[in-house]
């Protein structure tokens, strides 16, 4: 973070010298505000305002049409005492996060390492592997519903070639979440690009030195490559955890009538929140839910940041 914020105020320092320059500086400052004004307005209307409203709303029984009475922490109490679905949705979401984040991260790293070999035609491979990452939306979900169809889908057909009797994926409650994770793995090429850029930044002299010492490919990978790209792994884990906690569309489109079936196995936290807000219009409760999610994400991100110094290697930093 440090690096991107600090472009040095060289100009300002020079100008500070006289009063005339001070007024010039004020004028400059005004222009600065003019340039960022659209963002400030947008931030107030679409972000800060809604955040404040949501914060207050989460302590009310707001239902968009008639009521908005302050009811204290009743919404939060209700989550613990009177809404079994929320716990199920939290379990479903946690399962998805805990399985999908490590898998997609590891997959992206391995793919990037494979694609970083100096083999001819690598550009073509990069294009192919990256393609699924740019595809999203209902079209992709429909495609995967067909691919994962137990009888006529591609996945179980391919599995049958190697003698595996594939599961019923989206219709078997114990496989639905794995089906979504499987789908996510298809677009692992998105993360791959991130790693590829950082792999290319690893100095070749490190490998040369290791080769002189007779290090094997595996040793080189675990003792040079992996440590050198830990900053990107860290960034990837933080952002993909935040993303995975908010899974919604996949479950909405790929379950019947967007209900998160079968057996509520696809009711994720956000889907439950959506139903509360826009199906039964219990908006106060839904807003309270959204803050709970926010706090969960915030706490996990802070934990991630605290754990980072133990395993993230920054170039030129003294290890204690």
């Amino acid at each position, binding site marked *: 973070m440090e690096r991107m*914020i600090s*472009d040095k105020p060289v*100009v*300002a320092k020079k100008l500070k010298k006289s009063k005339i320059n001070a007024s010039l500086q004020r004028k*400059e*400052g*005004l*222009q*600065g*505000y003019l*340039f*960022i004004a*659209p*963002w400030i307005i*947008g*931030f107030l*209307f679409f972000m800060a305002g*809604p955040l404040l409203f*949501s914060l207050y709303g989460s302590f009310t029984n707001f239902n968009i049409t008639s009521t908005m009475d302050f009811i204290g922490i009743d919404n939060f109490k209700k989550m613990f005492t009177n809404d079994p679905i929320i716990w199920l949705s939290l379990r479903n979401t946690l399962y998805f996060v805990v399985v999908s984040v490590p898998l997609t991260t590891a997959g992206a790293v391995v793919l990037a390492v494979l694609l970083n*070999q100096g*083999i001819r035609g690598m550009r073509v*491979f990069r*294009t*192919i*592997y*990256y*393609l699924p990452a*740019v595809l999203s*939306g*209902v*079209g992709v979900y*429909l*495609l995967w*519903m*067909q*691919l994962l*169809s137990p*009888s*006529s*889908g*591609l996945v179980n*057909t391919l599995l*049958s070639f190697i003698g595996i009797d594939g599961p019923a994926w989206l219709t078997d409650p114990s496989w639905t979440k794995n089906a979504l994770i499987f789908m996510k793995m298809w677009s692992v*090429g998105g993360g791959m*690009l*991130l790693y590829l*850029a950082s792999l290319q930044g690893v100095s070749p002299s490190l490998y040369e030195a290791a080769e002189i010492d007779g290090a094997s490919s595996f040793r080189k990978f675990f003792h040079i490559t992996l440590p050198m790209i830990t*900053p*990107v792994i860290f960034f990837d884990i933080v952002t993909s955890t935040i993303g995975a906690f*908010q899974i919604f569309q996949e479950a909405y*489109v790929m379950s019947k*009538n967007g209900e998160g079936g079968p057996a509520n196995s696809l009711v994720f936290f956000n889907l439950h929140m*959506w139903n509360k*807000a826009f199906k039964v219009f219990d*908006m106060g409760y839904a*807003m309270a839910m*959204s803050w709970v*999610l*926010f706090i969960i*994400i915030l706490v996990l991100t802070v934990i991630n940041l605290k754990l980072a110094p133990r395993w993230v290697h920054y170039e030129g930093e003294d290890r204690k």
Partner: protein
Amino acid sequence: MSAKAQKQNNYFESVKFKKKMGQSIVLIVLIAGSLLILSPIWWMIATSLKDMKEIMTYPPTFIPKEWHWENYLTTLEKGPFLKYTMNTLFITSLVVLGNVFANSFIAYGFAKIQFKGRNVLFGIVLATMMIPGFVTLIPQYVLYAKLGWLNTYLPLILPAFFGSAFFIFLLRQFFLTIPNELIEAAKIDGANHLIIWWKIFVPLSKPAIATVAILSFNGAWNDFLGPLLFINDESLFTLQLGLQVFKGQNDTQWNFLMAGSLMVLLPVIMLFFFFQRYFIEGMNLTAGSKG
């Protein structure tokens, strides 16, 4: 052992041979992986051309026995996809326009003008990327409802004209690489920041702006949540919404569903093949700053 045999033996143990061997294995893995990655796309094309009888036969065929091109016409007749396409294009082009202008304008302010609180404000820009979308989604819905904007395109288009954190960040990173001397020189010639932004920075950062344009096209084209929440009237539906409704009406009619999906995905696939440089540029800009 003859000298020749020994030489051969050495070759098989040599570093060069091992390297070649390793590369061959990697190549085989990559080719197999590519086939796996591309197979869903082929499967979508194949399924869209089959009739339902062939789709249901076991084992499934990889190449359609008969090519039913008319499936595409049937799909187009089954739903007003042309209308959905026009609606989507209308929204998408305005969103791209908004994103390109607003974000480059705002990013210039953050990158090249000194003002009080700039770093704090930019910190807030970055922090907003952390906030889960649903926290602001419900209040935004309420706001748009009170303004009478529901069932119009305003909630989908207007926010694009007020900047988005990721694009501001991306363009700012790019602008920072353009030397300040250019600004100083232009100022001596009497140019103000508005002119410098429009006449110097916008032309110089075409690659970054193209990245923003393409990523925001992709985002708007694929946006499902926004239209789902804000649009009720079928005549205002976008392709994503239309496809979702189409899915409900043609349960397990896989040939029509795949034909519809492919038609919606095709523009993005084409865009990717023509402009993949910019997609990749966008990723690299983010990656570089995190290194």
